[in-house]
């Protein structure tokens, strides 16, 4: 879609932004990296939990996305939006929410023990997986849902008029779409879970659940062993890129076919199917929204009593989020290609701490890192969001090119006209969703600016951590509610804009 120069520039910029810092950390060390038994155990556990988390997230997302795709009900858009919320919460807040439901004295265990069963402990591999599914199920669901809604309606109608059975419909209509979307969703969640740290440790119940990210943290902050940190960061990167490459390779076949780009009218469905879908949606809402609801109830009361500095931090976070959103979309549009998707994965493939340390080392001779802490946060957020945005945009961009490029070329449309009349109307929806996603993602990654965060110009998540660090747990809960509502509002505004009057 975009001219080649744009593609190369954007790709090179993203690759440089991630690889240079890693190189800088590597170069800074004067010793050789040494990996002991503990590091290998960490690597093994990291891979295991990431594979399982990605598998479970996608596995559960399949019926949920399918149910959401074919069910129309009042408040559906709202439900879809709120289902995305776990993904945007600061880790520590999400953990507290999960504990409120699944912890020792959580609602789940209260009900469970009331029925006479033994209390179930969340701590262990089951807790790690539960939390990762909680975070990533919404993401997988959204990606699959986009897949379902992008199936040309002609295919579904054809399948109906041919009288295909449910199984036949699945094989001919849905399977080709899934082959393309599932590996991609799996890979992105796998890569996210590779760099899990606080969640894995806290809910994993101890050092059994040590991840590479913890080893990196230890190497940089305690041992000052930059060689090991760079080595581990490089391992993370390699595994991530491998996953991204496999996903792109597996998703190469395109069975979508052409359609006339029309929306699908609702058709009557068997009662059993409707009941099944309804049940799945209800369970998903309970699982994803209950922890958030409890957080909101506990935190909402103190919302108006938050000191002004927290509100200023919130405003600062919103501005950063908007800036990151613009930057991310500017990078994403030219990168909507197969290679682009692999390059885009780089953003989440490197440990934030390594990235931050590397950036610090690079800029240090030229500027005072404190002066650019917020700019760095903005850029990192943009690059971090890139993989998600690309997975949403790329199928749409590619499909639009495939379907309409020949036609528009034969009509002699120039690049601008092509963008305006062919791409824009078809991309508006995924663009709106992407913009919503970027702006709502955790506003300011703390790992990145661990070395040079500025307390005076703190972002909202940093304020929440500061409150927790000084015993003010209740105020921190209110701060989390503020963050949650701001993120959801931003998401809603952009997503709503993308849907326009729902004509497309």
């Amino acid at each position, binding site marked *: 879609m975009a001219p080649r120069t744009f593609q190369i520039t954007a790709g090179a910029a993203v690759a440089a932004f991630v690889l240079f810092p890693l190189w800088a950390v590597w170069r*800074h060390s004067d010793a050789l990296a040494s990996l002991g038994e*503990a590091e290998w155990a960490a690597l093994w556990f990291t891979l295991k939990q990431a594979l399982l988390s990605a598998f479970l997230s996608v596995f559960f997302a399949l019926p949920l996305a399918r149910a959401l795709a074919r069910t129309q009900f009042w408040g559906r858009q709202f439900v879809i939006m709120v289902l995305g919320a776990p993904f945007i919460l600061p880790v*520590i807040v999400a*953990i*507290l929410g999960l*504990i*409120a439901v699944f*912890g*020792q*004295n959580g609602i789940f265990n209260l009900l469970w023990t009331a029925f006479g069963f033994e209390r179930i402990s969340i*701590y262990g591999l089951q807790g790690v997986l539960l939390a990762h599914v909680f975070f990533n199920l919404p993401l997988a669901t959204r990606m699959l849902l986009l897949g379902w809604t992008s199936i040309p309606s002609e295919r579904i109608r054809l399948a109906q008029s041919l009288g295909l059975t449910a199984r036949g419909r699945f094989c001919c209509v849905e399977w080709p779409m899934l082959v393309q979307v599932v590996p991609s969703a799996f890979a992105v969640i796998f890569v996210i879970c590779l760099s899990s740290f*606080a969640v894995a*440790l*806290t809910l*994993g*119940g*101890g*050092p*059994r659940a*040590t991840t590479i990210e*913890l080893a990196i*943290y*230890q190497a940089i*902050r*305690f041992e*000052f062993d930059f060689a090991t940190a760079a080595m581990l960061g490089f391992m993370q990167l390699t595994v991530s890129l491998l996953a991204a490459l496999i996903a792109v390779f597996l998703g190469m076949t395109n069975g979508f076919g052409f359609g006339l780009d029309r929306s699908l009218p609702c058709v009557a469905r068997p009662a059993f199917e409707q009941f099944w879908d309804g049940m799945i949606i209800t369970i998903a809402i309970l699982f994803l929204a209950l922890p958030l609801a409890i957080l909101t109830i506990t935190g909402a009361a103190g919302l108006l009593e938050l*000191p002004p500095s927290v509100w*200023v931090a919130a405003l600062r976070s919103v*501005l*950063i989020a908007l800036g990151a959103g613009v930057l991310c979309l500017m990078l994403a549009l030219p990168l909507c290609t197969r290679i682009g998707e692999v390059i885009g994965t780089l953003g989440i493939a490197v440990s934030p701490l390594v990235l931050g*340390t590397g950036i*610090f*080392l690079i800029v*240090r001779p030229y500027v*005072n890192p*404190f*002066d*650019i*802490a*917020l700019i760095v946060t903005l850029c990192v957020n943009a690059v971090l969001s890139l993989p998600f945005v690309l997975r949403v945009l790329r199928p749409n961009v590619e499909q639009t090119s495939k379907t309409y490029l020949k036609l528009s070329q034969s009509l002699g449309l120039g690049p601008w006209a092509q963008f305006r009349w062919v791409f824009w109307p078809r991309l508006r929806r995924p663009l709106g969703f992407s913009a919503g996603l970027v702006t709502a993602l955790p506003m300011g990654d703390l790992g990145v600016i*661990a*070395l*040079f*965060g*500025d*307390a*005076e*110009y*703190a972002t909202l998540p*940093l304020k929440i*951590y*500061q*409150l*927790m*660090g*000084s*015993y*003010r*747990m209740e105020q*921190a809960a209110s701060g989390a509610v503020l963050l949650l509502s701001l993120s959801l509002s931003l998401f809603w505004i952009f997503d709503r804009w993308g849907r326009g009057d729902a004509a497309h």
Partner: protein
Amino acid sequence: MKHFTFAAGLLSASMALADAPVLTVYAPDYFASEWGPGPSIEAAFEKECNCDLQFKTGDVLSRIILEGARSEADVVIGLNTDVTKKARETGLFAAHGQDNSQLTLPLTWTDQVFLPFNYGHTAFVYNAEKLREAPQSFDALIHSNDELKVIIQDPRSSISGLALVLWVKAVFGEEAENVWEKLAPKILTVTKGWSEAYGLFTEGEADMVLSYTTSPAYHIVAEGDLTKKAAIFPEGHYLMVELAAKLKGTDNPELADAFLAFIMTDTFQNLIPEENWSLPAALEVSEWPQAFQELPLPEKVLFYSEEEAATLRGVAIEEWRRALSK
């Protein structure tokens, strides 16, 4: 344009330069945040120094080590005794020039480079209303029912977690790994840092949490809540001392010295208890706020010098990891 300036002001981290000389102090984030002691200390010092004190937050020691001699820091504050060996070896720090005999620490301090400004002890904190019979010794904790659930911090990512493994090592020596194996079933989970652990404890997730002997003071003073207590163990408690130091490369040596001298004043020390929620390093007990004077504190204090801590650290962490991974 007005909006743009406003936005730029929100995003720009560089402050308008005043005429007064600037003293740059690297500090941990919790210290300089508006809920830490930083702002009051800044205001009090600026009143007498005719200067502009600026806290730069982040991971203090990592930063200094990365920056080396080019660091713009004049003073660092918030280092911990268990990691100062690495700091000293950089050779970047100058003598603090203060009189160590003014210190009121529970041990004799002779270090000429790192100056203590507050201290505390690691301790297990519990809610006395919920846990009626809390273990009152390490031995009782080890032999308590496995139903008792404790949350601790990871020694590989948290300074209080590190103090805990050193504490166990100091009490049990060779037996440390055995002790960890006995403690393992009672450890509900291990967190990245203190905040996560304390947050879970406040949520009622566990009976006890690894924190400090001074933690109950926050609940008493700020919340009027008398239920939170720190169990005092007769085997002794591990001492955690926070330190400040001057950099050799400072371009403001007089100002840096003035700040270190300020740390030893009553003005500074009086801010520590109820702003940092820890014990002042150079203030007689009789001068402490009431709640702190009444706080139960351990009689026996355990402490490793930075040399010992550096030697034992790797072993102690590995014993902990092995025992808890089983």
